[in-house]
């Protein structure tokens, strides 16, 4: 019970402090789980990140589950996951209701509009990172390597998928399955 509560508390803090989601939370989890409590070794932490990228689900939830299982078994995993999502969901609902209620206020209206634009900019940032990893296998690309490191297979799969998406609005899950199969055929 004690371990479960400790995990819940640790991930409640991580969940509360991680604004922006995705890769923004990696340093936070590292600080709490690897450096401060020492529950997980640095090598294992890198592995967790890799596994999180390979498996479905948000990074935060995946890491919480993984760390939770390692430290406190199934109960630990559930406690850590719950802690990780609780604050976000509550604050999110609160914000949403607040915006809905005060939609007539020109301040709230404009702020929401601005947040929409800014978060689209952040989505683009995430998209560019994903493209960079898919095409060049790295996040830190240099201009002189654009051609030499280019994965032409990935570019081909990307282009075909994008064409199909724009033209026929194909189901995203189907896109994932087809591109996964393409990977199996082309890379193995």
């Amino acid at each position: 019970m004690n371990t479960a509560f400790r995990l819940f508390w640790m991930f409640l803090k991580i969940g509360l402090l991680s604004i922006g989601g995705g890769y923004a939370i990696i340093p936070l989890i590292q600080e709490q789980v690897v450096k401060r409590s020492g529950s997980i070794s640095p090598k294992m932490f890198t592995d967790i990140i890799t596994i999180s990228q390979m498996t479905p689900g948000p990074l935060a939830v995946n890491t919480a589950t993984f760390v939770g299982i390692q430290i406190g078994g199934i109960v630990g995993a559930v406690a850590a996951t719950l802690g990780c999502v609780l604050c976000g969901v509550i604050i999110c609902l609160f914000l949403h209701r607040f915006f809905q209620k005060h939609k007539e206020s020109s301040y709230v209206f404009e702020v929401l509009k601005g947040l929409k634009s800014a978060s689209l900019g952040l989505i683009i940032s995430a998209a560019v990172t994903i493209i960079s990893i898919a095409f060049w296998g790295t996040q830190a690309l240099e201009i002189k390597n654009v051609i030499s490191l280019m994965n032409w297979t990935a570019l081909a799969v990307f282009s075909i998928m994008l064409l199909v998406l724009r033209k026929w609005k194909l189901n995203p899950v189907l896109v994932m399955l087809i591109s996964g199969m393409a990977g199996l055929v082309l890379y193995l």
Partner: protein
Amino acid sequence: MKNRNTHLWLLAVNLFISTFTFGGGYVVVPMVRRFFVWKKRYFTEEELMDMAAVAQSAPGAIAINLSALAGYHVAGMTGVLISCIAAVLPPLLILGIVSAFYTAFISNAVAAAVLKGMEAGVAALMVDLVADMCALIIKERSLFLTMMIPAAFLANFFLHINVALILIVCCFFCIVQVFRRKRGTK
């Protein structure tokens, strides 16, 4: 009966989205758009963008926050509960299995090939979504809002400025904007 069907649909669709959303985060937005906006018409593309902005501005995992908001729209607090449980269940189960023999999984060539292929698929999904959303904002014909997109992108991608700070500065600019306009009309 209709209520129960809605709840079941919400449970199924969230389990489905969560199982097939590799990488989490914004990849769920095109999925939610597909099922909630296009198929069932529970809310509009405009509202989805409102929700994405709120999910982004609140702490925690964006994917879970967005699922919770979508669930709230469809079935109130019950919807939130169903969506959240359904959204965390697949990663919980999969990671539970994977963590048992994680070294074997990491070095598996088949898994690596499938995932490499999926990376390109995810990239295409993101570009498709971004194109539609940019069109929505540019349609508003506000230079201020349109410029906010590249500004936030540059600040985050090239200058590595903290997301929370970007959002706070954005709010500040919006408030100044309204303030100036109000003074102008007086």
